């Protein structure tokens, strides 16, 4: 059977189908029609991903740069990628349908659709690649496409695309970012991680001689390079994942990525880009099997770092979200929080060996949370986009009256938020119960630390509150919007309705699947139930009191300003860069210049050259003396050396 055709269609159709619109960028007539072709391209990917889901399993390989190099087209259809492929393709497809309406009348549809489809194709490549080099190709595709999409409205001519209040200054820094700056912040941050990641992949290639994640002998690789080597290698690799997934302290780009069209935000936050980091972490951990490698020195430290980076990002995101005033930025902060929990769950697998159907429960928890979150968060973003269209405002606003007039969005938000926060007995409750069990395990068993479960509970409660806040301030208790534009938007409504309905399917799957039985089991435990009820209470309280006026200045502003992390990103880091650049210019370049170009070497050569030419004074008697002198000298040396030979 020629399986390659399915992969080819899966990856190439989205890209090829968006080439016509990219080429027809000058024709208004064609750019209005051709988006349907682009959406069809993604639909083909959906069909392919479903075909792969139901019929294909195991590794598929075709030669690329040569079998002897170990860099080939190698795809893995394992549990993670089969599910994730469907999640990615379906979400991209629903968002694309929504986008047909949302992006109508935009000033550069060709750019948008080409980048959007490239984004989807790149993520699919990341999902299915078993070869790290091939994965990195998709990874870079994600980076390039995200830059194009976040900065899509590059003219910076509409305040609706900004992040932060225009003109608001705190200290020397203006806390307001236009789309052009958003794109730049994204690409510069992820490049910062991609370079060490690339070196890590190169190191793995050199050390293991193989780049196929499922085939690398990770244990011998780690044992070969010792504790320090393992830590450096894994941290370099993780730099790529942390920056892509916007974990602290690399989260800033994600907040200003909201300058892109909402469809982009939805895709970016659910099934691509930020999810890519967490997904690759789960995928690699799946094959490293760290729970079997407790003998490897240094690996525990690596997983501890990931655990806490994840948990701290989770709490940081949730807290920041509690102070956010902008619709999409609130959701962005909550995404960062969720992704943090995915990392944490995956990292906990190091200590948690409980297996169901041959799979580690901690990794399953991380993955199922990713899937649930993807559909719920994509729905919320699509709703936010509809609201921005309807109210002409990117800030949280809309009372009950407004909510009644925009019922589909209202209902979708209720479903998405309640299904996501982990209230019993909805979808995320079961997954979160599994997560509670994992973190509780870290306290009760190895390594006996209580902090993870505390951080998880705090994050869960805050997270519930901010989701309720989103619902309340947009549909129930928000201020009356200045503009109301409720006509049309049929495809938008269809988009998020389909998206949110998948959450019911996921709930169903959790109950019927063999491997998710562990979640259900965890859901019946009292600890999980208490946390679930706590989340519900936090949700209800925040729904009723979405704003607490005494907290709105402090710490509300502090949270809204993302705890002033923008200073690290926009002020301190550039200052360090400028300082290095200054030092290089002032001392490095000038020194190098003086050594090679202006003083030392030219001076030396000039002096020697003049010395050589100095003997040319034109007098024969001097020349004869010199030459005869040398001849005599050489002959004497030869005579002495030759005696006795």
């Amino acid at each position, binding site marked *: 059977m020629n399986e390659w055709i399915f992969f080819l269609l899966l990856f190439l159709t989205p890209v090829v189908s968006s080439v016509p619109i990219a080429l027809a960028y000058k024709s208004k007539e064609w750019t209005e029609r051709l988006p349907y072709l682009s959406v069809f391209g993604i639909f083909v990917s959906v069909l392919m991903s479903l075909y792969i889901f139901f019929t294909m399993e195991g590794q598929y390989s075709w030669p690329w740069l040569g079998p002897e190099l170990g860099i080939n087209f190698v795809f893995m259809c394992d549990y993670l990628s089969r599910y994730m492929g469907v999640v990615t393709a379906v979400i991209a497809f629903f968002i694309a349908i929504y986008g047909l309406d949302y992006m109508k009348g935009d000033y550069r549809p060709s750019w948008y659709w080409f980048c959007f489809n490239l984004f989807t194709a790149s993520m699919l490549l990341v999902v299915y690649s078993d070869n790290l080099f091939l994965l990195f190709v998709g990874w870079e595709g994600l980076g390039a496409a995200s830059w194009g999409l976040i900065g899509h409205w590059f003219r910076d001519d509409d305040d609706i695309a900004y992040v932060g209040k225009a003109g608001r200054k705190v200290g020397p820094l203006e806390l307001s970012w236009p789309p052009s700056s958003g794109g730049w912040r994204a690409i510069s941050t992820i490049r910062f991680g991609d370079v060490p990641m690339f070196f890590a992949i190169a190191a793995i290639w050199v050390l293991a001689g193989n780049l196929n994640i499922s085939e690398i002998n990770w244990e011998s690789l780690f044992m070969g390079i010792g504790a320090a080597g393992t830590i450096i290698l894994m941290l370099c690799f993780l730099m790529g994942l942390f920056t892509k997934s916007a974990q602290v302290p690399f989260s800033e780009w994600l907040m200003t990525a909201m300058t892109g069209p909402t469809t982009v935000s939805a895709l970016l936050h659910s099934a691509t880009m930020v999810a890519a980091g967490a997904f690759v972490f789960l995928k690699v951990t799946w094959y490293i099997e760290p729970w079997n490698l407790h003998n490897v020195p240094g690996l525990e430290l690596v997983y501890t770092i990931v655990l806490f980076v994840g948990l701290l990002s989770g709490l940081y995101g949730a807290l920041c979200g509690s102070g956010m005033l902008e619709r999409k930025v609130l959701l962005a902060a909550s995404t960062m929080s969720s992704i943090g929990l995915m990392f944490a769950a995956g990292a906990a697998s190091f200590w948690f060996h409980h297996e169901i159907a041959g799979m580690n429960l901690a990794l399953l928890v991380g993955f199922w949370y990713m899937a649930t979150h993807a559909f719920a968060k994509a729905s919320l973003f699509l709703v936010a986009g509809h609201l921005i269209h309807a109210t002409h405002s990117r800030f949280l606003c809309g009372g009950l009256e407004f909510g009644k007039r925009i019922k589909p969005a209202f209902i979708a938000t209720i479903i998405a938020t309640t299904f996501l926060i982990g209230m019993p007995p909805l979808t995320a409750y079961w997954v979160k119960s599994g997560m509670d069990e994992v973190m509780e395990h870290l306290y009760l068993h190895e390594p006996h630390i209580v902090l993870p479960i505390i951080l998880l509970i705090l994050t869960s409660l805050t997270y519930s509150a901010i989701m309720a806040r989103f619902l309340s301030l947009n549909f129930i208790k928000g201020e009356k919007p200045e503009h109301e534009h409720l006509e049309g938007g049929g495809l938008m409504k269809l988009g998020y309705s389909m998206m949110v309905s998948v959450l019911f399917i996921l709930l169903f799957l959790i109950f019927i699947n063999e491997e998710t039985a562990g979640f259900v089991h965890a859901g019946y435990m009292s600890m999980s139930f208490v946390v679930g009820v706590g989340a519900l209470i936090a949700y209800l309280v925040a729904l009723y009191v979405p704003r607490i006026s005494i907290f709105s200045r402090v710490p509300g502003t502090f949270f809204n300003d993302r705890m002033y992390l923008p200073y690290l990103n926009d002020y301190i880091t550039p200052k360090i860069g400028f300082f290095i650049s200054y030092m290089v210019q002032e001392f490095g370049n000038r020194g190098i210049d003086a050594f090679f170009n202006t003083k030392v070497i030219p001076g030396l050569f000039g002096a020697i050259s003049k010395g*050589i030419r100095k*003997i040319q004074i034109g007098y024969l008697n001097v020349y004869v003396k010199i030459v005869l002198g040398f*001849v005599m000298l050489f002959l004497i040396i030869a005579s002495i*050396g030759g005696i006795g030979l």
Partner: protein
Amino acid sequence: MTDLTMLGVALIILTLSAVCSFKFRPAGLIGAIVALLIGLNTCNYFPYSIFVFLIGFVNLLSLVTLKSEIKGVDYALVGLMTLATMYIFNTSDFAFVLAALVLVSVPTYILVMLREGGANVELGVKYISFMVLATVLFLIGAVILFYTKTAFDGFLYVLGYVMLVLGLCIEIGVAPLHEWVPDVFASGDPIPISIIASLAKIVPFIAALWILVYTACDLTGSITMFTAVLAVISMFTGNIGALTSKEPARVLAYSTVAGMGYLLTCLVVVSKPELIYLALTGGLLFLFSNAAGKIGFFNAVKSEGAYSILMFILAFSFIGVPPLMGFWGKLFILITLAEMQYFWLVGIIVLNSVISIPYYVRLASELGVSWEANLSNLICLVVVIITLVTVLFVPVEWFFSSMEAIAHTVGIAVLK
């Protein structure tokens, strides 16, 4: 007719045409060209002979612009030098080799003094003093070496080797015995100097290599270091000296000193005679590209500039940019040295090629002017075509096989 008879005929034609040229000037040129053609027919090794023929021919052509007092005879002198150079591989006779050396050397004594409206006697004295010293050292060295071939004596061998190499060094201008070169090159007329810098360098190199290989013994391996050290001194002296020289003729003088340093490194091959064809390939390609470049540049000096593109092609050939002939010459020299395990010398040659870049580029840009149809540009065009021959015909096979055949002639087994 035998080779010798043909050679005799050529010599007679040369002499007669020189005599006739007192009455009819162009007779000298015509006679010299006819003699060269006969020589070309006589010479057994095709690529080598055609290169020498072309260099001699271009030298003759460039003499047309020089209005000397012995106009006509100067053609015969260059013709004689070219014939001797062509003939050197036709013989395995020691006496003929030494005769060829003298035949190539002596005409330059007269040529160096040529200038328009008189004779440059002072320069002649300076040049001849060194040449006499060089020839004497070379000949005595050669005789001693041949003596040790029949009755071996280590002391005499070393003495003979050093004298021969010193003679060669003075003759071709290797530092630190190069003092005559900058003065002669800068104050002589560019046309005769271009002959001294091109044609006159080939025979001394071949003769030295021939004699040293023929007389090689167990001591040779250890004494080649002496040659290598002289070569290094010469390369650095020439290249660094040229960096701050302003006058084009003086830059070319130092470039010759450096070039002869590269050439001298080929002599380290004498302790491994089976590799001589490599050294011959490298040395001769280097000498041909050097001759082409020197003729082009000196003609440009004479006519105060030549077509810019031609100048740059010659400069790149000198630097050793592939696929020009200068590159192949240096490449085979480097291969020879690598085979001889002289890796440090390889590094020094590469380093020196880098040092030489600025002054060659400067020389080309200073001498480069826009196109004008004149004899000087024609000559430059011909030498550039010679330099570009290796672009069309990469000289791995045809030059190589010819050099292997030559190595056989001089009685040395070639390892395949």
